[in-house]
């Protein structure tokens, strides 16, 4: 039973890469991945255990669910509580705790919250149930935003009167700037997200090398991909270079996907967005453009969520910045587990804490 993926899981290739990493990475460095799929791949395949002592692999704010701030989750919950509203969203958002509740808790309480697998499915619900107002909760980075943008345009084309989108979408590059500027973090290299880069290409990351001298490598998601990304970063550091390189040639070209970017820009405009643990980063949010106001849930379902609160002791914010490792949080594995999560990093299938809890022994004695 072989598959196209087997080459990227070939133990021999992996072993050669691991040897090369050990030979190259002679100086201590902190490499951060900023994609939840990388977080999971590293944990699932036990790649941390294959690294030399000089390399620390950190997980950054790469899980769109995790970086969604409490006030935004509270707003989604408040919208779901409005009479006649169906809130449709991807499954990952269901269990994320807001200040007082979660969408799965609201569903158990009888609110009409539904999981969809594509934003277009929410249009179908709106057509089938004209007496309801369907709100699609859009969360994600440049990977998912174009699909939601096209869904907004499709809703306009169909002239759907009972559908709107709550966009909590965010863009990645400026968040990396915030991390590089953070004196507590001190990243020496970035493992850049393959999927996001498929859309935006390499140019938006160039400032990392140009302005800050931080090397970065756009990396795929198979174990061999990740090892290759780490090896290329090690080489850049050893040779004193700082460039944006692509280790994921089968998925990314330098230009990105201009059609997807155009679709995103046609529906959304940049706004300031709050990132959990980092705070407000200018221009990293995506709000619906004014011409699509009738499809903007913030306009169509006006409501005021309760005053937000942060959970005492939850260190998700520090975990998302790579300042605290998941198992150093006092709640990890004790008050906060995947069954009873306190913070989003333990909830999301791509959260750092969930990855550590699921695939390692830490904090479970």
């Amino acid at each position: 039973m072989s598959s196209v993926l087997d080459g990227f899981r070939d133990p021999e290739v992996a072993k050669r890469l691991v040897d090369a990493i050990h030979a190259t990475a002679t100086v201590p460095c902190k490499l951060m991945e900023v994609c939840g799929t990388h977080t999971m791949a590293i944990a699932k395949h036990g790649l941390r255990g294959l690294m030399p002592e000089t390399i620390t692999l950190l997980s950054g704010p790469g899980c769109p669910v995790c970086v969604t701030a409490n006030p935004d989750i509270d707003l989604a919950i408040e919208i779901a509580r409005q009479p006649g509203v169906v809130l449709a969203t991807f499954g990952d958002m269901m269990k994320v705790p807001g200040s007082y509740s979660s969408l799965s808790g609201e569903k158990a309480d009888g609110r009409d919250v539904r999981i969809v697998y594509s934003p277009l499915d929410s249009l179908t619900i709106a057509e089938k149930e004209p007496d309801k107002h369907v709100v699609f909760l859009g969360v994600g980075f440049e990977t998912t935003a174009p699909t939601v943008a096209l869904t907004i345009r499709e809703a306009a084309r169909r002239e759907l009167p009972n559908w709107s989108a709550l966009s909590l979408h965010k863009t990645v590059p400026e968040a990396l700037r915030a991390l590089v500027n953070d004196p507590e973090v001190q990243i020496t290299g970035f493992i850049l997200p393959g999927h996001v880069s498929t859309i935006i290409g390499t140019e938006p990351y160039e400032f990392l090398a140009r302005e800050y001298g931080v090397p970065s490598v756009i990396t795929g998601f198979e174990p061999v991909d990740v090892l290759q990304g780490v090896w290329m970063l090690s080489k850049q550091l050893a040779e004193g270079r700082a460039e944006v390189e692509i280790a994921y040639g089968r998925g990314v070209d330098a230009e990105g996907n201009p059609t997807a970017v155009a679709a995103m820009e046609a529906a959304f405009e940049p706004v300031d967005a709050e990132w959990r643990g980092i705070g407000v980063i200018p221009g990293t949010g995506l709000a619906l453009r004014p011409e699509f106001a009738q499809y903007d849930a913030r306009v169509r379902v006006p409501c005021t969520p309760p005053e937000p609160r942060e959970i005492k002791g939850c260190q998700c914010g520090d975990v998302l910045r790579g300042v605290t490792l998941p198992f150093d949080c006092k709640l990890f594995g004790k008050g906060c587990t995947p069954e009873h999560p306190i913070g989003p990093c333990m909830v999301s299938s791509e959260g750092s804490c969930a990855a550590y809890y699921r695939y390692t022994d830490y904090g479970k004695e």
Partner: protein
Amino acid sequence: MRADRILLAHGSGGTMMKELIEELFVAEFGDEVLLRMDDAASLPFPGARLAFSTDTYVVHPLFFPGGDIGRLAICGTVNDVATSGATPLYISVGFVLEEGMPVEELKRIIVSMHDAAAEAGVRIVTGDTKVVERGHGDGVYINTAGVGVLPDGLDLSGSHCKAGDVVLLSGTLGDHGIAVISTREGLSFSTDIRTDAAPLSALVAAVLAAAPDVRCFRDPTRGGLASTLNELASASGVSITVEELSVPVNDQVRGACEMLGYDVFQVANEGKMVAVVPADEAEAALGAMKAAPYGAEAVVIGTVAEGPAGKVYVRTAFGATRIMDMLVGEQLPRIC
């Protein structure tokens, strides 16, 4: 129990379901047979020992590639009874029908149940029907209970695994879960994957005949192989290590898991059996499994060690080791 309401995740076969069963049901009912927490209860009975098991089926959609809720309801209970080493004999069926369900659909399900029972050699001997108002059910829910006879002196249990034992798996992982999810509204993707729902009583009997000291059988349904092995490791106070490279997975199942962000170890199966056997009987048990119906792709997937108690490890293709944890909540497709 920390949750104050029942959530969907309480029915997913993972840690939350375990918590619900142990802290609510078992704590209240407290019977010594129930406390063993095996898939079928072994009961003393005048002149014989019985195995008794029940299960309820609420699958959606009702029909999926290779099977339907009816075949599932018979095979699932047959397999639960078989895990005790018993020969399944009699089945009861209880239907909760939703007002408005097409009779033609129900008929298809009934025929499918009859065929599965015939294949498994069990008789459907009693039943019950209730109808609920439209909107209060997913077409049909089915409860089945099964009774079988246990051979004298046989005492299989998930708490009997010992260091040095070998773990066998009767075939590929994840086929049922992916077949069902591939037909779910809004997620349909094209695949040739069919459910593996099948009665495994003949396979169990064959392994028992070849390896009389077998410790236990388990069918890794909801929560998948991960939940099954974690339950065994906890019940026996041992650790289990699985070799990732030796676990058979169909390419299309693997591809679908990659796409959806699922862990194949946590995806449901309905026609697979896990057996834990002493090392000196492993070869005979494997041979018998391979020769039995639905066991052609059987393999040795791992070994049992002293400890740490309750831990299940996966040795990855690169020689790294990670934990194989129980499913928590439900597997939900990822968003990026």
